[in-house]
């Protein structure tokens, strides 16, 4: 195996935090996680892996970095978990930094490799353990740590003050009335059918996305609400930080909001990790087998709206369109068919991507990597080479990406690789193409958003 050659990246979350680590603390933390939290499953994986390398080609990092063996899934495990086990946790702080770099920045926990392993070994799970250990030692990208602290205090990833959230909603409602007559965004409506749970960015920098969702909810005449209180935000970066305790607090807050408002369903934003946190990692960490309230991604909801005629397409997009299958909702939840169904209903020229659906490549920004800030941008750009090539090969001019991370990183890759395309959320696609019913039209608004 080639030695790990990596660009030096300055990140206080790695460089400063390791200065506080004693060998004893490192060893205790590693042993606590491996022996008390992970034991049986980890042992099965470690004992079963025959180092055959069949999973190598599955990893977009391995493919994007010209098949550099140090990016192979099994190499990541060998350099982290196996090393910890072999050395019984007796490693120095610099080694912890290496573990953290691999766990946090070179695996998106996309779980594509598991599909190609004859034994179904879950490399992603082992990388979650690496993140758990490094997170407990507070060695993690500083941007991610910052978001983890934000969750501890606000249950939202972006330090959104409680008044800012409500103010934003009221402002978006006022703006929306320019286009939709008497549009409502009802806060705290007890007994509503659906609680929409936005990404915190929708309350800060991307309020247009909240407006798009509100527009669709109004046009589809949905009985919906959002909480004015904490629990409204669907994001959960603590999951990526290996902070299971805060992850659990965030998810409990989230579902408590749903129970308090007596809603039948919670719909998350167009986000992969929020969905994963609510449906899998977060719910299960609290003892629920499935989310205690039916939990949908907008892709599912929009599929139902279009199928049932609650949203009618007025004008189809004519340019060639393809899709990005976000790992959390397609490989891990099988929503790729619904995604295509909505896209085909709203677009004349759909171009399938290859490989697709559950075999699709990760965008290289998943599992929090999108949030690591400028020092780590290169990682997404270089690690996403396989992704952008795959999208370019379709000849599409528009990529529909129903995930905040996929959306942002593909947009940046388009710029980086000078690709002739642009990215849209599925909600943007619907807002652009749907018919506004007669009784909702305003003098300022038009039949559809132009």
């Amino acid at each position, binding site marked *: 195996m080639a030695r790990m050659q990596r660009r030096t990246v300055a990140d206080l979350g790695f460089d400063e935090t390791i200065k506080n680590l004693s060998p004893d603390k490192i060893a205790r933390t590693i042993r606590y996680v491996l022996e008390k939290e992970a034991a049986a499953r980890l042992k099965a994986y470690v004992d079963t892996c025959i180092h055959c390398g069949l999973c190598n080609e599955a990893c977009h990092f391995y493919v994007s970095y010209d098949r550099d063996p140090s990016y192979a899934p099994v190499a990541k495990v060998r350099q982290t978990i196996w090393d910890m086990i072999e050395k019984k946790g007796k490693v120095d702080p610099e080694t912890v930094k290496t573990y953290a770099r691999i766990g946090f920045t070179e695996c998106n926990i996309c779980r594509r490799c598991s599909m190609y392993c004859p034994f179904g070994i879950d490399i992603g799970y082992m990388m979650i353990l690496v993140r758990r250990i490094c997170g407990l030692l507070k060695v993690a990208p500083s941007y991610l740590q910052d978001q983890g602290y934000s969750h501890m205090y606000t249950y939202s990833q972006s330090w959104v003050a409680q008044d800012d959230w409500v103010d934003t909603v009221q402002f978006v409602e006022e703006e929306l009335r320019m286009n939709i007559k*008497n549009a409502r965004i009802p806060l705290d409506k007890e007994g509503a059918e659906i609680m929409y749970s936005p990404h915190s960015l929708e309350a800060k920098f991307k309020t247009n996305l909240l407006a798009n969702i509100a527009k669709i909810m109004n046009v589809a005449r949905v009985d919906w609400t959002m909480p004015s209180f904490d629990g409204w935000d669907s994001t959960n970066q603590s999951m990526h930080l290996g902070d299971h305790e805060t992850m659990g607090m965030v998810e409990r807050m989230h579902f408590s909001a749903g129970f308090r408002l007596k809603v039948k369903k919670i719909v998350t934003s167009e986000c992969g990790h929020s969905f994963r946190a609510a449906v899998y990692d977060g719910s299960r960490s609290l003892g629920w087998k499935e989310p205690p309230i039916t939990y949908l991604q907008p892709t599912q909801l929009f599929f139902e709206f279009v199928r049932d005629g609650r949203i009618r397409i007025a004008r189809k997009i004519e340019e060639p369109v393809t899709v990005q299958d976000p790992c959390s909702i397609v490989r891990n939840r099988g929503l790729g068919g619904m995604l295509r169904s909505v896209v085909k209903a709203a677009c004349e020229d759909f171009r399938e991507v290859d490989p697709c659906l559950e075999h699709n490549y990760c965008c290289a920004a998943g599992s929090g990597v999108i949030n690591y800030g400028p020092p780590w941008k290169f990682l997404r750009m270089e690690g996403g080479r396989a992704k952008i090539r795959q999208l370019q090969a379709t000849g599409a001019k528009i990529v529909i990406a129903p995930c905040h991370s996929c959306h942002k990183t593909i947009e940046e890759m388009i710029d980086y690789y000078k690709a002739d395309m642009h990215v849209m959320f599925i909600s943007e696609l619907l807002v652009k193409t749907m018919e506004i019913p007669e009784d909702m039209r305003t003098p300022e608004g038009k039949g559809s958003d132009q």
Partner: protein
Amino acid sequence: MNDVADWDWAPGDKCIADVADWKRRFPVVHEYTVTNDGEKIAAIVEQGNKAVTVCVNGELWPVVAERAWSLKFSPDNRLVCPMLREYEWSIVVDGSPWEETYDYVWNLTFSADGKSIAANIKKDNEFGICLNGRSWETRFTEARDVVVSPDGSRTASMVKVRRVATLDIFSFAEGVITVAVDGEAWERNFLSIWGMSFSSDSRMVAAGVNLDRLTYTVAINGVPWERTFSHIWEPLFKPGSYDVFAPVKIDGLWTLAMNGSPVWDNSFVQLWEHRFSPTTNEIAAVVAVQFGKWTVARDAVPWGKTFRDAVLAPVFSPDGKRVAAIVKEDDRYTIAVDGTAWNERFDMVWDPVFGPDGSRIAVKAERKGAYFIAVDGRPGRESYDYLWPPIFSPDGEKVLIRCIQGGKYYRRVRPVSDV
């Protein structure tokens, strides 16, 4: 008219308001709210662009605002609404605004008797709480949530004591979050706070606090328990005492602790929402006995029957003998009482309401968009377009039904047998 005994309990129907007419009168009508005694119904109504007011029993408040939200009746039947007028927020009570104005008002909260009204406020980019028209003298970089003491005289909020720049992970790791009571911050700061509550004499405040990774405990008036745990949920004072109980996680499992030491001798995959009996020392809590197997435990003994999806906070009967909770299985809700679930399943059900002697339970329930009352598991004959939870008469023989039917809001009193 806050005493239930003083309400009009004569059986019969009273049509209070033609709410369908409100929808004809105003282009936008927000959600309805009603008094406990059922005599009033109100909603925020919009008369035009940024001309918002409140309609109560068909009459309009004299105050017109640019924005209004969070309209609520207090438990003593006053109608309260945060309103924005000329770019300043204030709280309007029964049509009269408080003198104090704010940059923002949220988390409108009442004391149990309704005599105190509190909310979070922001003024000049500083945060605090206002109580009955007067805001805290000391304000903070940020404040979140409002808890009002049982006697209504005190308030607590979770506050950030100093500004921390984004990405300054080292300052945050030192702890900049604490609890402030009546504007006074606890001396010690924490990484995070989970759940604040007052003692029943309103003198003490307890909160779950995070000292470091896997180091959680309870702080009382700012002083943490000596023992820490790998995780914790909201602490509560036992009524009439300073004993604090909180779910704590030890060696991967949850149990109940009192004053820093476990008091239940068994532990669970999950434990939260502990509630005290009103008459004895008993405690009931929601527990998961195994992964995906939820139930209620009374003094650490779980019911035999478990539920797959969820169990919500247990409710004791007034005599403390029975415990009921909302339970959910296969995406359908019902009520379980002392470990036995009703046969009827609902699309949604509200908290169980015990009659005064504890022998009966009535709930608001919903199926396919139709609302009805169910008593002891038997759905009522009538269904409604909308409904508020039922209330028993002091003798337990009658039920107050507050409902909307055919566009009209009614206050109905029915013998329980006739629901």
